């Protein structure tokens, strides 16, 4: 069992927890992920590590409440326990030789982008961050990004906060203005990453994308997280859990990844509704 050391809501649907897992905290690097189970019947879900405190032995996770499992996790309180927590899994984000980087985060993906930005800042790279959200209420981690970025641009889809538009708009402007990034690193919804890749590719800037597909074991055993890369005209199958989660954005077949991500859409929607109803009933019973 793994104790929830702290819990905090970052906005109405995004929750941050620090979990006591000293072995994981001791090894975790930006870009890696963990797999957790909330209870003894629970499914295994991967979450990218949003930070860790080696002294306190805690690992930070930030998740959006989107399905039954994240709903259950969000119902856990500080001081309570979750069943299983394993990691760090996957490869750390490659930082070598990158002196000037642009980090592009979208929505809850910013939670994962933030420790990557921090790591580049710590290593002395020049960090430009572009973070985008659907609206004002969903903005998270703005101060944290400010602290580790030489330049920060905040975007909102509906214009209710900061500048209106997609993250690709300022990226394109910067590239057009002659900014020379060694690398663009993007973490967020697949569709956003796909367009970040297209934008950067126009200018020949390499892009690293962080993939977060459906997984079970996270150690290369099940192959459920496989994705297709187009390498020199050849299709190559890779496993996100052991070969990633970071990949060369130019090579990733995003359309396939988006389709695979929706494999259990019907099941998940139903399970989430059921879970919400159960919690509502339980809460009603307490009154």
């Amino acid at each position, binding site marked *: 069992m793994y104790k929830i050391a702290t819990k905090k809501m970052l906005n109405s649907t995004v929750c941050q927890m620090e979990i006591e897992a000293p072995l994981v905290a001791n090894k975790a690097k930006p870009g890696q992920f963990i797999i957790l189970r909330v209870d003894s*019947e629970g*499914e295994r879900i991967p979450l990218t590590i949003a930070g860790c405190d080696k002294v306190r032995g805690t690992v930070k996770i930030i998740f959006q409440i989107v399905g039954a499992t994240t709903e259950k996790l969000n119902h856990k309180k500080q001081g309570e326990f979750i069943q299983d927590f394993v990691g*760090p*899994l996957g490869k750390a984000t490659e930082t070598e030789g990158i002196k000037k980087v642009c980090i592009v985060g979208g929505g809850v993906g910013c939670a994962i982008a933030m420790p990557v930005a921090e790591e580049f800042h710590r290593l002395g790279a020049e960090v430009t961050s572009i973070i985008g959200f659907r609206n004002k209420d969903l903005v998270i981690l703005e101060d944290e990004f400010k602290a580790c970025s030489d330049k920060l641009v905040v975007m909102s889809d509906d214009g209710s906060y900061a500048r209106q538009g997609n993250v690709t708009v300022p990226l394109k402007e910067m590239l057009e203005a002659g900014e020379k990034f060694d690398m663009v690193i993007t973490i967020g919804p697949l569709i956003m990453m796909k367009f970040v890749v297209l934008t950067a590719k126009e200018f020949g800037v390499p892009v690293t994308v962080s993939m977060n597909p459906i997984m079970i*074991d996270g150690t*290369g055993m*099940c*192959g459920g997280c496989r994705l297709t890369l187009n390498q020199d005209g050849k299709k190559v199958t890779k496993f996100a859990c052991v070969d990633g989660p970071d990949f060369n954005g130019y090579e990733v077949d995003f359309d396939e990844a988006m389709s695979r991500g929706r494999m259990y859409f019907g099941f998940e929607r139903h*399970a989430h509704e059921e879970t919400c109803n159960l919690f509502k009933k339980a809460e009603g019973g307490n009154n």
Partner: protein
Amino acid sequence: MAINPKKHEMPTQDAKVRARNFSEVALGYTEEMAISEANRCLNCKNKPCVAGCPVNINIPDFITLVKQGDFEGAYKVIAQTSSLPAVCGRVCPQETQCESKCTLGIKFEPVGIGRLERYVADWHNANAKEGGEKPQSNGHKVAIVGSGPSGLTCAGDLAKKGYDVTVYEAFHVAGGVLVYGIPEFRLPKSIVAKEVEGLKALGVKVETNVVIGKTLTVDELFDMGFEAVFIGSGAGLPNFMGIPGESLKGVYSANEFLTRSNLMKAYRENPDTPIMKGGNVAVVGGGNVAMDAARTALRLGAEKVYIVYRRSMDELPARKEEVEHAQEEGIEFKLLCNPVEILGYNNPENPRDEKNGFVTGMRCVKMELGEPDAKGRRRPVVIPGSDFEIKVDTVVMSIGTSPNPLIKDTTEGLEVNAHGGIVVNEEGLSSKQGVYAGGDAVTGAATVISAMGAGKTAAAAIDKYLSNK
């Protein structure tokens, strides 16, 4: 007294009934059946059966005790050399091991050794008073990587000799392939749990949620005071065929399909973990894992389940018993048949159609057997123009695995072969001092019992190494 030429039949659930439930297929002998079957043993001098057992169970001795009705005594004989009797009695391919060597088998059917082993182990689990005493510690610490059959065997043998053993498991529950791979209807998980509890009673510590190569490295285990490490991390990465359509929704590796059902309990009502159920299912491959996947699909509610295998029935690598069970349950064998493409739904009018990207069928070609290959198996050759389609909703690829790179990549000085398997000598010692390995991590996909044999060999070698240290 005339000897019954045939083995006592194993009572089983009716094929029609069991094809729709996850309860165990084989029900086990009664006491009368066990004693009667034991009496078929000639107690011959040469004991060829013992040499046929990868862990050298003293078979005639335990059978003699069964004849006398001393089941606990029989259990003690088995337990001297086997750490997992209830498991082996169920999943060992006895027909190619101990039973294939049985003297009685020259004229008649051999003694049902596996069935007797199962009876004895189940009797012990049901009747024995708990609390086998914990052996006296010898002060040496050994780490075991992976809690599958090789790791558990190695752990058990070392614990019995007084070693302080810790088993590290990446999953949230111990058992490895015995819990994620082999289905409930062939090996109930309560039996695996019981065997693991037995090891814990001997003092073995089991640490779940630790991925060696990630959470801790092999070198760190030595830093932590372990004097020897046994790697039994299993096979790993599933193979795919490399044909178009393998990324469509509804295509699984057998590992994923079985893990969802077995380990994550997706077969239960209202599971937290989803799995595709119903419709038509094609399982590609002909091994025991393919049989397990096919029979699982059927129990999950499939209308039609096919085994698609490129050679003929004679070459099918699965155990005969498993193939027969599958046939009885109504699984259709499409032999001399090989998939060339998996077909998916695509509505060009509506890219948001929820059915887009799901499997609808599989295009196959017919094969014929040509010249024998290097291993002497006749090579399947495509019959030109024989393409045909089958309508399926789910495809399970059960065509083997490749070793997992996590430990190799993080352990300096650990030699692996061209296939990624860890290189070991006949004692299980790797190229790195104090590091031993066995099971699928060394050989690639093989059987539970051969992995147990490797765990046993390594345990003896580790004992020798640390006693002389």
